[in-house]
């Protein structure tokens, strides 16, 4: 009995994952392809279809929705269009997943408009703030003479802060808050039976231990920042090595070693996977 229950729950989680992945993926793909309109420095873009995973997270298991949405964005709009940016995508993946998960955990009853609104707006602000912070850190790290270039630090803080406010007040309200307020109460009780799931009751999200949730979110965010900062570590490593030998030899060897390490690491991953599967 208990195994069949967990198996059904697993299948439902997979359904929710597939649903969230394909819907959000389609939306991000469409929004990636629609050209954004620049009016002066204010950018009007339909960048943000975050209302889809937000609505779904308030109706179904938040974790599956969050992972599905992040995967959907990765697969549809990054890999399909060949825009995969390596480590940079990790940051996007984590910020979207955290924001959606938090929003889903905050709403015990999707018919409660006030909670839905607060959760949707808060999650959008959270996601935007996290990605703005990562962006600033990335530019600080990637441009060598960041402080030496006059005007650059100010311009980065200015553009990032402005983009944050612009996105939050324009995309956030128009494309996250209002659609979620429209969709979440209307879909409640209608979409769940289609997947064979019971509509959400407050007990379903009762296990949201908020300190643990906050801690997890913080840890994930630090991970994202670290990923963005790896480039800095690489920088200083090579500079140090070049100083040490002051020749191309050291540089080339260092890079060759890096390649070999990458290959070996890849091999190890593979062996690990086969062994654990055997």
């Amino acid at each position: 009995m208990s195994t069949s229950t967990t198996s059904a729950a697993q299948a439902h989680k997979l359904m929710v994952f597939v649903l969230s992945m394909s819907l959000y993926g389609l939306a991000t793909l469409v929004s990636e392809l629609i050209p954004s309109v620049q009016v002066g420095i204010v950018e009007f873009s339909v960048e943000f279809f975050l209302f889809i995973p937000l609505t779904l997270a308030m109706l179904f298991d938040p974790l599956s929705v969050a992972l599905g949405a992040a995967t959907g964005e990765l697969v549809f709009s990054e890999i399909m269009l060949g825009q995969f940016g390596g480590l940079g995508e990790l940051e996007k993946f984590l910020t979207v997943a955290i924001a959606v998960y938090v929003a889903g955990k905050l709403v015990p009853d999707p018919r409660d408009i006030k909670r839905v609104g607060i959760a949707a707006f808060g999650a959008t602000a959270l996601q935007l703030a996290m990605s703005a912070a990562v962006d600033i850190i990335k530019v600080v790290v990637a441009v060598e003479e960041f402080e030496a270039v006059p005007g650059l630090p100010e311009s980065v803080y200015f553009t990032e802060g402005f983009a944050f406010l612009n996105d939050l007040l324009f995309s956030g309200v128009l494309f996250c808050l209002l659609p979620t307020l429209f969709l979440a109460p209307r879909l409640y009780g209608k979409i769940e039976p289609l997947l064979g799931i019971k509509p959400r009751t407050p007990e379903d999200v009762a296990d949201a231990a908020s300190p643990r949730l906050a801690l997890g979110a913080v840890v994930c965010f630090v991970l994202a920042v670290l990923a963005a900062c790896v480039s800095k570590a690489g920088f200083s490593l090579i500079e140090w090595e070049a100083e040490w030998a002051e020749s191309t030899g050291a540089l080339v060897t260092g890079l060759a070693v890096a390649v070999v390490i990458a290959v070996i690491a890849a091999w190890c991953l593979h062996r690990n996977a086969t062994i654990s599967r055997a």
Partner: protein
Amino acid sequence: MLEKLSENVLDKVSIDYLRNQVLKNAYGNDDTPIARLDPRVLLIWYLFFGLVPWFLGDVVTLLGMFIFCAATTRLARVAPLVLFVFALGVFSQTGYLLIVSILFSGSIDALIPLLVMTLKVTTCSLASITVFSGLDPDRLSNGLLWFGCPERLSFSISFAYRILPIMFEELQNILLSFRMRGRAPAHETLGGKVHWLVYQVKTIIQSFYPLMLNMAKRSRTTVEALELKGYRYASTNAAVLKIKLGSLAIGRNDILFIALSVVWALGCFALPHVLEVLV
């Protein structure tokens, strides 16, 4: 300005065009030299060309790597739309920064670091376009699976390419039915144009309501079909993995490609020093 606003957002984008471009990108170029390479080789190649440029600061080296990545992208015959999106992305990442920092400081000093950064971004993006657009989705997901990526991800890639045309068609049908039943506001005057834009955006958002319900049914069918075939059991089974990955093989072309890449990369690293000696 507002004219441009309403024109740009919806008039020029036909969903058929988007669908065709994406499908062409995914399945339309199986016969290119890049697509015939082993996905594992290409992924390792990407690991190098997608990561190493971030750590370099020399303009000449970066330029060499950029030329190489541009050549491979040409070889992969990537769809024009993808290239357009890529160009737009590069501009919005660093191009605007260039303009703003010149506005703030009024000096030309900011150009060199920003040029280096633009080259970095461009080279890495071109490498990823080569690998992820040049490869067949099934080969790509097999390659990722071989490296021990979660089965969920490689399933998502294969599934995404199959479901996308269906979803595009459905979205288009829903939008068209909204258009048939509704009455778009007149958009001759300025205020009318704004109304028209708001109307279009509202239609798109409302059309996600039926789309979500339909997609829920579809994803239930998909998962049930997967379960019938034992998907969750197979995804953790080593024997299944072995059969699945049996088709991967490294041939002469792969070795040629690796050799060329290595020689070119070494040349790029040596070039600044050769120039130094010559000048």
